[in-house]
C-alpha cells in the first residue's frame, strides 16, 4: 500500500510540476496569421504599404453603422468641407439626416462635433500610413532588401507626395495643423505641437516628390513628377505665392499623366466624371482611384455613397439624397444670351426656373429659353433634363424632401445606368458604390491657377487665354447633354480690362468649372487670406452672408428653412480643432486664437 501512495503522490506532483515548468514557453503566443514589420521590409512589403497609403485617400474607415463614425467626410472629395460649406450645395435629404453635417453647413460647429474628428482622423490616418511606409522603406534600404536607388526614390517620392496631401487637408480645413514626420514614435504622438505653420514641411515633401518622381509611372493611379509639381503649385497658390506658382505651373502645364499622355483638357467636359472615360484620360492629374464590385463596400467612392438621387423604386441611381446643389450654384450657370459669358454680378438676382413645389405628376415644362452654360447639366440634375443615361430627371420623385433639400440632384459622382454591374453597383442595404474617381487635381484646375497667377503677377492676355481654354472645351457642342431642351449659350472672354476684372472672372470660372468638386470654400478662404497680396481682396464673411449665398438662399421666398438663422462668422473660415484632439494631446494641439486657443490660424 505504501508504494501505491508514493506512486500517486509522485505522479500527481510531477503533473503539477510539469504545469509550472513549461509555463514560460506556454505563454509565448505570437498572433497567428499576421505580418510583422520585419516580414514586410522588402520590396513587396513596402510597395504594399504604399498601396495602403493611397487607399487612405478616401478617408473612409468603415465602422459599424451604429457608432455614427461612418466616415463619409474624411477623404479627398471634400463634398462637405469644400462644396457645402462654400455654398455649392446643401446637405440635402431630410432635416436631420447627417445631423452633424448641418452645423458645418450653417457655420456653427462646436469642437465636440463628431464630423470634425472624421476629417481630422481620416487625414492623419493617411499621414500614419505614409510614415509607416517610409520607416519600412528605410529599413529595407538599410538592410539591402531594396537595393535599387531609383525604386527607393520613387517609393519615397510617392509616399511623401501623399503625406503632403494629407497634411494639406488638415491645414485647409482647420488652419492649424501639426506636422508628423516618419521619425515620430507612437509614444511621442500626443506631444507634437501645432505651434507653427506647416507650409514649409508640406512644400519640402512635395519638392522631394517633384525632384524624384518619374514623369511616367508604372500604374495610372500613381502620382508622377507632374502631379507633385501641380500639387506644390497648389500649395503656393494657397499662400498667395503667385510668382513661385506661376513658374512652376508653366513647367507643369507641359507635363504628362502618369501613363505618359500629355496633359490636355478632355474634349468632352463630362468625360471627367464617367468611368468609361477614365482610362487614358488626359486631364486627370491626380485622383483618388475608386473601384466598385471588388468585393468591398469601402472602395467605391465611399464618401459619395449617399450622395445620389433618392427614390430607387424608379430604377434611378437611387440612394439617400444627400448633397443637393444650391440655387446659387444653379444660378451661377446663367449666361448672357449674346456673349455667352456668366452674369458675374447679377446671376443671383433671380432664380432659374425650377420645379420646386411640384410633384412629378404635376405638369412642368423646363426652361428652354434662359441662356445657360452647358456645364450646368453636368453639374446639377434638374427636372426635365436627361440625367446621364437614367432618362429624364422626374423632379420630386427623385428628391427625398424638396422642402428641405431643394429640387436639384448631384450628378458628377453618380454612375451611369450602363455602368451598373461593371463599375458601379448598389450594395449592402442599397447605397451606391462606384468606380468614379475623385478628382483631386485635374488639368482644368491647373489652367485656372495659371490664369489666376498670370492675372496677379503676369500677363492678363495669358490669363484670358487660359480661361478661354477651359470655356472653349465647355462650348464643345458634342459635349452638351444630349437631348437637353435647355438653351446652352457659352462664349469666350475677349479680354480683361483690369487685374481685378480678370480675377473676378477667373474666380467665377473656378466656381462653375469645378462646381460640386469640393474646392469652393477653400478658394474663398485663400482669397480672403490673400488680403494684401491680391489685386482683388475678398471678404469671405461678406461674401457668404451676402447675396452670393445666404442672403439669397434666405431671401424673400425663404425656400431653405434649414439655413434660417445661419450666419457665417470669421472664425468659421477654419473649423475648430476637435475637442477630442485638444483633450487627448493636453492642448499640445490647441485651438486657434479665434476659438480661444493659442495658435495662429494660417
Amino acid at each position, binding site marked *: 500500500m505504501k508504494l501505491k501512495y508514493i506512486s500517486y503522490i509522485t505522479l500527481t506532483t510531477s503533473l503539477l510540476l510539469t504545469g*509550472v515548468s513549461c509555463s514560460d514557453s506556454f505563454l509565448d503566443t505570437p498572433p497567428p496569421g499576421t505580418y510583422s514589420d520585419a516580414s514586410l521590409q522588402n520590396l513587396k512589403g513596402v510597395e504594399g504599404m504604399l498601396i495602403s497609403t493611397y487607399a487612405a485617400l478616401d478617408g473612409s474607415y468603415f465602422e459599424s453603422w451604429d457608432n455614427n463614425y461612418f466616415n463619409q467626410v474624411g477623404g479627398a472629395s471634400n463634398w462637405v468641407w469644400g462644396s457645402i460649406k462654400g455654398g455649392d450645395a446643401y446637405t440635402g435629404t431630410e432635416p436631420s439626416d447627417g445631423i452633424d453635417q448641418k452645423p458645418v453647413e450653417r457655420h456653427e460647429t462646436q469642437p465636440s462635433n463628431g464630423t470634425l474628428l472624421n476629417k481630422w482622423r481620416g487625414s492623419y490616418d493617411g499621414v500614419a500610413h505614409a510614415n509607416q511606409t517610409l520607416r519600412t522603406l528605410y529599413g529595407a534600404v538599410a538592410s539591402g532588401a531594396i537595393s535599387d536607388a531609383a525604386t527607393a526614390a520613387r517609393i519615397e517620392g510617392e509616399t511623401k507626395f501623399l503625406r503632403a496631401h494629407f497634411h494639406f487637408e488638415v491645414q485647409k480645413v482647420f488652419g492649424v495643423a501639426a506636422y508628423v514626420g516618419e521619425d515620430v514614435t507612437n509614444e511621442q504622438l500626443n506631444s507634437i505641437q501645432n505651434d507653427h505653420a506647416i507650409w514649409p514641411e508640406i512644400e519640402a515633401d512635395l519638392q522631394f516628390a517633384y525632384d524624384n518622381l518619374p514623369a511616367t509611372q508604372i500604374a495610372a493611379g500613381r502620382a508622377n513628377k507632374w502631379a507633385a509639381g501641380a500639387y506644390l503649385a497648389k500649395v503656393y497658390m494657397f499662400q498667395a505665392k503667385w510668382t513661385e506658382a506661376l513658374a512652376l505651373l508653366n513647367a507643369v502645364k507641359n507635363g504628362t499623366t502618369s501613363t505618359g499622355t500629355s496633359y490636355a483638357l478632355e474634349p468632352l467636359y463630362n468625360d471627367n466624371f464617367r468611368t468609361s472615360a477614365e482610362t487614358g484620360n488626359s486631364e486627370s492629374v491626380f485622383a483618388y482611384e475608386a473601384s466598385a464590385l471588388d468585393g468591398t463596400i469601402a472602395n467605391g467612392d465611399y464618401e459619395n455613397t449617399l450622395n445620389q438621387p433618392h427614390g430607387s423604386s424608379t430604377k434611378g441611381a437611387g440612394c439617400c439624397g444627400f448633397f443637393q446643389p444650391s440655387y446659387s450654384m444653379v444660378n451661377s450657370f446663367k449666361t448672357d444670351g449674346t456673349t455667352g459669358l456668366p452674369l458675374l454680378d447679377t446671376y443671383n438676382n433671380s432664380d432659374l426656373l425650377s420645379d420646386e413645389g411640384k410633384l412629378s405628376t404635376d405638369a412642368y415644362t423646363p426652361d428652354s429659353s434662359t441662356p445657360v452654360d452647358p456645364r450646368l447639366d453636368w453639374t446639377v440634375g434638374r427636372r426635365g433634363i436627361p440625367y446621364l443615361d437614367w432618362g429624364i430627371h422626374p423632379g420630386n420623385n427623385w428628391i427625398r424632401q424638396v422642402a428641405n433639400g431643394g429640387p436639384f440632384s448631384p450628378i458628377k459622382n453618380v454612375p451611369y445606368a450602363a455602368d451598373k454591374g461593371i463599375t458601379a453597383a448598389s450594395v449592402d442595404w442599397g447605397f451606391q458604390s462606384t468606380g468614379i474617381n475623385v478628382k483631386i487635381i485635374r488639368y482644368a484646375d491647373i489652367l485656372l491657377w495659371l490664369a489666376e497667377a498670370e492675372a496677379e503677377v503676369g500677363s492678363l492676355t495669358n490669363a484670358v487665354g487660359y480661361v478661354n481654354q477651359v470655356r472653349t472645351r465647355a462650348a464643345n457642342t458634342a459635349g452638351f447633354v444630349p437631348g437637353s431642351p435647355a438653351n446652352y449659350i457659352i462664349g469666350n472672354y475677349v479680354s480683361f480690362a483690369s487685374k481685378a476684372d480678370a480675377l473676378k472672372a477667373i474666380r467665377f470660372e473656378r466656381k462653375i468649372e469645378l462646381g460640386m468638386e469640393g474646392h469652393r470654400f477653400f478658394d474663398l478662404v485663400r482669397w480672403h487670406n490673400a488680403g494684401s497680396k491680391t489685386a482683388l481682396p475678398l471678404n469671405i464673411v461678406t461674401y457668404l452672408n451676402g447675396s452670393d449665398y445666404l442672403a439669397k438662399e434666405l431671401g424673400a421666398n425663404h425656400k431653405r428653412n434649414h439655413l434660417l438663422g445661419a450666419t457665417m462668422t470669421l472664425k468659421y473660415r477654419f473649423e475648430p480643432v476637435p475637442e477630442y484632439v485638444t483633450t487627448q494631446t493636453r492642448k499640445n494641439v490647441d485651438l486657434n486664437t479665434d476659438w480661444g486657443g493659442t495658435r495662429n490660424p494660417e
Partner: protein
Amino acid sequence: MKNLYKIKLRIIMVAGLLTLFTSLWAQERIVSGTVTDENGSTMPGVNVLVKGTSTGAATDVDGNFKINITDDQSTLVFSFVGYATSEIIVGSRSVVNIQLTPDVQTLTELVVTGYSVEKKADIIGAVSVVNSKELLQTPTANLSAMLQGRAAGVISSGGGAPGEAAKVRIRGFSSFNGSDPLYVIDGVPTTDANRVNPNDVESIQVLKDATSASIYGSRAAGGVIIVTTKQGKAGSMSINYNGYGGMTYVPKSYQPDMLNTSEYAQYLKLSDPTANHPLFGIQGDINTNSLPDFYVTSPSLKAGFAAGAAEVDPSLYTIEDYSSIYQITPVSAGTNWFDEVTRNAGIQNHQLQASGGSEKVNYSVSFNYFKQQGVYVNSGYKRYSVRVNTAFKPNKHIRIGENFQFSNESFQNATGGGARGEASAWAQSFRMVPYIPVYDIGDANGNLGWGGNGIGSSGNGTNPVAQLYRDKNDENLNYKMFGNVFAEVNPIKDLTLRTSFGVDMGTYFSKDLVIKTYERAENTGTTALNQSTSYNLNWTWSNTLNYSKTFGDHTVKLLAGVEAIKQNIGDGITTQNVNTFDFEDPDFVSLNTDQGIGQNSSSTKGQLRTLASTFGRLDYTFKDKYLFNATLRRDGSSAFGKQHTYGTFPAFGLGWRISQESFMQSISFISDLKLRGGWGQLGNQGPVNGRNQYTTFGSNAGLSNYDINRTQNSLAIGYSAFNASSQTTKWETSESTNIGFDASILEGKVEVSFNYFNIDTKDLLVGQPPPPLGGLLSQPAINLGKMRNRGFDFNITNRGKIIGDLDYDVTLTFTHFKNTAIDLDGNPATFFSGNASRLNNVWRTQAGHPISSFYGYRLDGFYNTQAEVDALAMDGAKVGSWKFRDLNGDNKIDDNDKAFIGSPQPKFIMGINLGLKYKAFDFSTFLMWNYGNDLFNYTKYWTDMRVFVGGVSPRVLYDGWTPENHNATLPQLGSGDSDGYTTFIRANSNDYYIEDGSYLRGKTFQIGYTIPSDLASKIGITRARIYVQGQNYFTITKYSGPDPDISIQNTNNSELNMGLDNAAFPNPRQFLVGLNLTF
C-alpha cells in the same frame, strides 16, 4: 461540484461507519425503519448514528436502514445534507420510521467555493448561494437571464429576446471593458453563461469579494459564479421529467402612442402647409385635398387616388419586374405596426433526466429541448442539449469522472428577432408612417405585395413585417461542447489530489440572405448571400491538492494548485455574394448559383491567448470560533509583454463566530452570529487581446487595398499596420475590502447576511484612445486610471408558519453601490464619450462621475419672446424653440454649457421572493425593484424630434409650444420661421431624453399543486407536481418606453455606454403551465 463532494463525503462516511460497525459487532438488537423526505419520498443515503457511540448506518436505495442498538434508551441521529438533523429515542420499538424536514439553518450546507468545498458556517468571504429551484422559475434558455434579483450584490438586465444572455454584473462595474463574471461550470471556467443548460443546474454560488474569489486570480475581478450540474446519487435511481409550455407576448401597454393617419395628416398640414405631398393626389395639396383611398407607386406615377379612379384599376397592378412596378396600396386608417410585428408566441421546455448510482459509479443523463418563438413574427430560438455526468470509484482512493454537455442552438432571423437599434422591428414600427398598410392590394390571384413608402415623402423606414418575413430563413447555428474529465486520488487520509481537463469548444455558422426589395423609398437593389463560419477551442487543465486536518481545537485546510488555460478563437471564413441569382427563391440561392461577379471570400484571423497560474490557500479555524484564511494566486498571461507577464493576487479574511463565545450563550434568540472581514486583490486581463504586445500588419480589401491600376473594379493588394502594440500593459487590479456579518435568529427563522464593500480598481485596462495624430489602427489595451465601487448588499430570509399548515418563506435581497471614476489618465479634462447611433456625445465618462453618465444640455424652458432670443445666443434660436440652460452665464450656448445630466446606474436593486405553502399547494412570487437610475430614451429622437419622416408621437401635435401655450413639452410645430425644431436642438443631446428608469416588476408568480404521494404511487409515480406561472406579470414605472429593464444594457458593446433605449427588445410577458414528474 457541490454534489460530487456531497457524494464523496457521504461515501467516505458510509465506508468509515461500516468499518466501525463491523468492529463493534457485539451488541443487542436491530432496529430498522424507513426515512422519507418532506414529500414522503424515500431517502437513500441518510446517515443514521446511535448517539454517543460510533455505531452508524446509511439508508439503502429504498430509504431503509438497519442498525444495532444497545438498549431502549438509545437515540438515533439521522442526518442528511440539506436536512435538519433529527434525533429519536428508540424506546421499545423495533421499527423507527422518520420524515426529515429540510434544514432551514443552512450553516451546515456545503458550498463550493474555489477549487474546494466548505461549510457555510466556515465561510468568511462574501458568498451568495442562489436557490436553483427559484432560479428555474424564470423560463429562459440562458442562465444569466435567471440571475436577476436572486442574489444580493448581483445585478442583471435585459436578455428578453429568445435565447439571449442578460448582462450580469456583481457589485457594480470593476472594469471599463466589461466586467463579466467568470462562470465556473463543474470546475471549468468560461465567461459564457450560455454554456450550460439551466435545467441541469444543481447549485449556484456567487463569490463576490476577494476573500472568496481571489483563488481565481486574474479572471475573478468581475466576481465568480460557480455552477454545479446535477449528479447521480449513490444508491438511488430516478427519472425526472420537467416540462412547461405556454405563451409569451408584448403587452399593449408597452407600445408607444403614435399618431393615426388623420392625425398625421393634420400634423403634415401644420408642419408645412405649402408642401405638396404625393399621397394627397396628383396636385398633392395637403390643405385642400383629402386623404385618398389608395396610392400608386410606379416609376412614373406616385400619387394617391380616390377609389374608382382609373389609376387604381387592379388590372394595372404588377410587381413582376422590380424596375417597373405598378403598386396599388390601400391607405390605412392608421397601421399599428407594433401589433403587426408582434404575436402571441409559444414557448416550451422539456427536460428528461435519469440519474442514479451505486457506491462505485454514479451517473446523470439528461436531454433538453427548449423552443421559444420570438414575439416578433418569423423569429425564434431553439436548442437541444444533452448532458452526461458520470463518476467511477473503483476503490476508495480513486475517483474518475466526466461532465459533458453537447448543445445545438439555432436562431431564426439571425438574432432570434432580438435586434436593437434603428433597423430593428421595434424601431421600424415607430419609423413607419401610419397610412402605409402591411400589404398592397395584390394581383388578380390574390398574391399580396408588401406595403411600402416608395410613394415618396414617406420616410426611409422599412416595412418591418416584410423585413422579418424576408429574413425568416436567416439563421445562426451554434454547436457547442463543454465539460471536463477529472480524476481524484486520496493517497492518504485528509489529502485529495485532483486533476481536471476541461474543454469549451464551439462551431458557429451563420447565413444571411439579403433579398431585393421593391416597395421601399430606399430599395436594396441586389440580392446578396452572406455566409460565415468560425470555431473556438479553449481548454483548461487544473491540478489541485487539498489537505484538511483537525488537531484538537485547530482545523487546518490547505489548497495548492496549478492551472493552464489556452484560449483559441479560431479562424473564421466569410463568403459574400453581392449579385443577382437566376432564382431568387431562398432554396435556390447559394454561393454556387450566383452570377459570378462580386463574390468575395475573406477570413477573419483567430486569436490565441494562454494563461498559466499557480495558487494556494490556507484556511485555519480555532475552536470553530476564529476563522482565518489567506489566498495567493500568481497568473501569467501571454497577452502581456515580458516585463508584465505575471500578476500576483493576495487576499486574506478573518471571521469570528461570536455566537460560539460563552458570553453569547445567554442570548438565546441568536442562533448564530458571525462577523467577517476580508481584503484582497483580483486581477483582470479581460479586454487584452492576444496580440496586444505585438505590432501586426495585415491586408484588408476595404482598408488597405487600392485600385492603383485604374481598373475601376479590382484592387491591388496593400499592407498596413493592423494594430499598435504595448509592452507596458499590465494586469488591471481591483482591490476589494469586504466587511459583513451573518446571523441566524430564532433557530433559522430569520437569517441575515450583510456586506459592506469597497472595490478600487486601479491600472484600469482601456483600449488606448487613438492618438489624434496617429493612424486608424486597432489600439492596444493600456492601463489608465482608477475607479471605485462602494456599497452594501444584504439578504434577509424569514420563514415560519402563518397558521396551521400554512408555511411562508420570504427572502429579500438588496444591493446598493455607487460607482465613481476616480481618475482616467491623470488629466482631469480627459473623458470618453459615446454616441447614440445618430445623436453624438450622449455619454461621458470623466473623473469624478459615475462611468457611462449621460451628458448634454439642460432644457430651460422656451424662447417665449424675441427679447429672450436676443438675450441668449443659441444657434438658430427663435421664438417657440427650446432654450438650453446657460450654465456658465456667458449669454451664449456652446459646448461649455453641457453638463452631466443623468446616470443609468440604479441607486438600489431589490429582489423579494415570497413563498407560501399550504398542504399540497405552493405559491411563490418574485418581485424586482430597481430604483433611482436614469434612462436615455433615444427613441424620442425619432418620434418627438421629427428628424426623419416617420411615425410621430402625439406630443408633437398636441403638446408643442404655441403663442398661447408657453407651458408645453416640445417646441412649436410649424414651418419656416415658426418651426421651433432647430438644427441645434435636434443635433444635441439634452435632458429631454432623460427619464426616470425606476421600476417595480412582478417577475414571476407560480402556483403549484403536488399530487399526494399515496395517490401518485398508485400510478407508479414518486412525485408529481403541476403548476401555472406568469412572468413579468406587472410593471410599475414612470418610464415611457416599452421596458425600463435596460439600465445596465450596453450600446456600442461598451461598458461606458449603458442605459440607452435604442429600440430595446422588451421583456415579454409569459404565461405557462408546467409539470414535474419523478419516477
